C-alpha cells in the first residue's frame, strides 16, 4: 500500500524540508490548480506519467509552459521514435499508488514506483519554489526543487534534471543523451498483486485482487524480481554497515550452503571445512574487496561533504 499524504508531509518535516501547504478542492488539470494557487509566486508543474514498449515507466515533471515533445524525448532516451506513450490510467493507481490526477514526483517514495525514472525540467531551478501534489490532488505544496531532488535521491530513486526543450540529433555518432535515465527493470507488479490480495478489508478492494493478479501473471513471466530489489538496495548497502554486513553474509552463506552437500561430505569428510574455506576465498575475495572499497569510498565521500560544508574554525 502506498504511503499517505500525511505520512509524506511528516517525512518531509522530519527531514527539515521547508514547504508551504495549500489545500483546495480536487483538481484534475494544471488550469484548475492555477485557479487556486496560481496567484502564489511559485512555478506550477505539469506531471506526465509515461510508459515505454518494455513496460518501463517514467515521470516527466515540467514547468507548465515548458514544451514537452514525447517523440524527441523518446529518441533522446534511446527508445526510437514513438517509443514513449502516456501510461494507462490503471498504471497511475497501480504503479504510482496515487489517485488519478495526482501524478507527482513524490510518488516515487512508494515501493511500487521504485524503478520509475524521474525527469525533472531543469527550468525548475530558476524558481525559488515549485508546486507539486503531495500524493493527492486536493493539496499542493511548494518547495525548492533541490529539496525535492535530494529527498528522492536519499531514498535511492532515479532522478535527473533534463533540458526538456533541447532537441539534439541522435544518430550513429551521437548516442541518445538521456539513455542513462532508462530504468534497468520494469517494475515488478507481482509485489503489488500480493499486497492487494491480502487487503480483504473493504468491499471495494475485494474485487480488485482478482483483476490485478490476472494481469500480473501475464506480465510477470519475464521479470526478475530479485534484480530490481537488489538495484534499489545496493546503493544503500554501501552507506549502512548493517546492510553491508548483510550483503557479505548473504553471499558467504550462499557459497557455504552450496558446498556442503552429500557428495562433498562423502568426498572430503573432516577436510570439508578446509574445502569450504578455500571456496569462500576463491569465489568471494575479489567481490568482497570491491564491496569494501565502495563502502570506504562512500564513507570518505560523506566525510568530504561534511568537511566542505563546515565553516573553518581555526586558521
Amino acid at each position, binding site marked *: 500500500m502506498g504511503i499517505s499524504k500525511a505520512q509524506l508531509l511528516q517525512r518531509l518535516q522530519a527531514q527539515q524540508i521547508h514547504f508551504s501547504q495549500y489545500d483546495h478542492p480536487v483538481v484534475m488539470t494544471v488550469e484548475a490548480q492555477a485557479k487556486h494557487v496560481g496567484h502564489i509566486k511559485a512555478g506550477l508543474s505539469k506531471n506526465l506519467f509515461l510508459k515505454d514498449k518494455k513496460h518501463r515507466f517514467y515521470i516527466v515533471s515540467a514547468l507548465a509552459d515548458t514544451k514537452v515533445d514525447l517523440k524527441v524525448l523518446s529518441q533522446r532516451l534511446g527508445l526510437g521514435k514513438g517509443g514513449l506513450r502516456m501510461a494507462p490510467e490503471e498504471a497511475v493507481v497501480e504503479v504510482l499508488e496515487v489517485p488519478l490526477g495526482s501524478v507527482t514526483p513524490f510518488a516515487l517514495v512508494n515501493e511500487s514506483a521504485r524503478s520509475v525514472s524521474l525527469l525533472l525540467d531543469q527550468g525548475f531551478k530558476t524558481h525559488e519554489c515549485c508546486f507539486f501534489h503531495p500524493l493527492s490532488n486536493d493539496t499542493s505544496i511548494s518547495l525548492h526543487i533541490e529539496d525535492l531532488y535530494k529527498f528522492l*535521491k536519499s531514498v535511492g530513486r532515479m532522478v535527473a534534471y533534463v533540458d526538456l526543450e533541447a532537441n539534439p540529433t541522435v544518430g*550513429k*555518432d551521437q*548516442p541518445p*543523451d538521456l*539513455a*542513462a535515465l532508462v530504468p*534497468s527493470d520494469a517494475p515488478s507488479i507481482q509485489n503489488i498483486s500480493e499486497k492487494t490480495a491480502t487487503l480483504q478489508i473493504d468491499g471495494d478492494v475485494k474485487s480488485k485482487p482478482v483483476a490485478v493478479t490476472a494481469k500480473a501473471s501475464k506480465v510477470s513471466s519475464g521479470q526478475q524480481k530479485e534484480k530490481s530489489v*537488489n*538495484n534499489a538496495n*545496493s*546503493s544503500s548497502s*554501501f552507506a549502512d554497515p548493517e546492510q553491508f554486513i548483510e550483503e557479505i553474509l548473504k553471499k558467504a552463506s550462499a557459497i557455504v550452503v552450496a558446498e556442503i552437500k552429500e557428495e562433498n561430505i562423502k568426498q572430503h569428510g573432516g577436510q570439508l571445512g578446509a574445502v569450504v574455506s578455500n571456496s569462500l576465498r576463491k569465489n568471494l575475495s*575479489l*567481490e568482497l*574487496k*570491491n564491496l569494501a*572499497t*565502495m563502502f*570506504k*569510498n*562512500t564513507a*570518505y*565521500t560523506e566525510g*568530504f*561533504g561534511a568537511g*566542505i560544508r563546515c565553516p573553518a574554525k581555526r586558521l
Partner: protein
Amino acid sequence: MENGAKRVEEEEEEQVVNPWEVSSKNKIDYDKLIDQFGCQRLDQSFVDRVFRLTGRSPHIFLRRNVFFAHNRDLNEILDAYERGDKFYLYTGRGPSSEALHLGHLIPFMFTKYLQEAFKVPLVIQLTDDEKCMWKNLTVEESKRLARENAKDIIACGFDVSRTFIFSDFDYVGGAFYENMVRVAKCVTYNKAVGIFGFTGEDHIGKISFPPVQAVPSFPSSFPHLFSGNDKLRCLIPCAIDQDPYFRMTRDVAPRLGYKKPALIESSFFPALQGVSGKMNAGDPNSAIYVTDSPKEIKNKVNKYAFSGGQDSVENHRKYGANLEVDIPFKYLSFFLEYDEELEHIRKEYGSGRMLTGEVKKRLIDVLTVLVERHRAARAAVTDEMVDAFMAVRPLPNMFN
C-alpha cells in the same frame, strides 16, 4: 637496395597505431610495435618478481600477457621499490563518449591491481580538452562526459584515499601549467609533427596539446600531493597506442631534471568481430558495453563474436579451433580468472573436442558477472563521490 627499402615501407603501412587510430590489414603485429616504439617484452621473471615484491598473486592481465611490454625504467622502479622508495601511478582516459566498453576498462582494472598490490597513489587524467579539440565536442559536453566517465572509473574500485582524478579543464594551471610550458619549450614544432603527424591544416590547439598529457608524469605537477618529493618516480599503465606521448615525455624529462616515467603497456582488446583492430565506440556491436543487459551480452556474443571454430562439426572435431583468431577464447583469456579452467578449454577447444557454443556460453557467464558487478558499483557512485575523488586535496595515507 631500393626495392628492399620500398617493400619494408609498404609493410610498415599495413598497420597504423597512434593515439587516434589503430588498424591493421591483418592481426596487429606486436613484435613490430615493440621494435617501432623501442620497448621490451615483459617476461616471466618480471611476473615472478612482482609476485615476490607484492606478496600476492600477479594480476590476470600479467599472467595472460595482456600487459606485455615495458620500457627499461620499469626494472628501475622495482629496484627502487625493493629499497623502500615508492612510486606513483598515472593513467587516464579521453572522455569521448558516455558509452564505456570492456576495452576501456582494461587499463583501469590493471591500474587498480597495481594500486592495491604496491600500495601507491594514483592520478587519473581525464583529457576533456583533447576530446573537445579532436572530436569537436563543446567544452560543456566534454566536461560532462568527463564526469560521467569518472563514475565508471570509480566503479572499477579505486581507493579514494589514494586516488586523485582530475579533468584538464578543471585542473590545468599553477604548477601543472608551469611544467607544461617547460615541456613545450623542449619540443620543436618539427619534432611534434614527426611524433604525432600534425599537418598544416591542424588547428593550433592540437599542436599544443601533447604537453598536457606529458606533465602528469612529473610529481611537481601535483604540489598538493607530492610537494617536496621531486624524485618520486612515475609508472604509467596504458595501451600501447599511447606510447608516442610518453616517448616525447621521456625525451624531455632529463633536460628538465626530472626522472623519466616508466611504462607498462597492454595489447588491444580485440573487437567482437575479430583481431584486426580495437573496439570502437562508434559501432555498438563491436564491443560489450558496461551498460549492456545480460540479454544483450548473450546476443552480442552469440551473434557477433568471431569464431575460430571450423565451419562444420565434423571438421571442427578433426581440426579443432583456430585459437589465434577465436574471439570467445581470447576474451576468456582476458577475463576468466581460473588458469586451470582456461588451460582445459585451450586443450579441449583447440583439439576440437569442445564446440564453439560451449565456449561462448562460458564467456557469456563470465562477462555477465563482470558487467553486473560493474553496474552495481556504478550505481553506488554519487555526484558527491565524484567531487570527492576530484577535489584538490592532500592524500595523507597514500603510501600506507
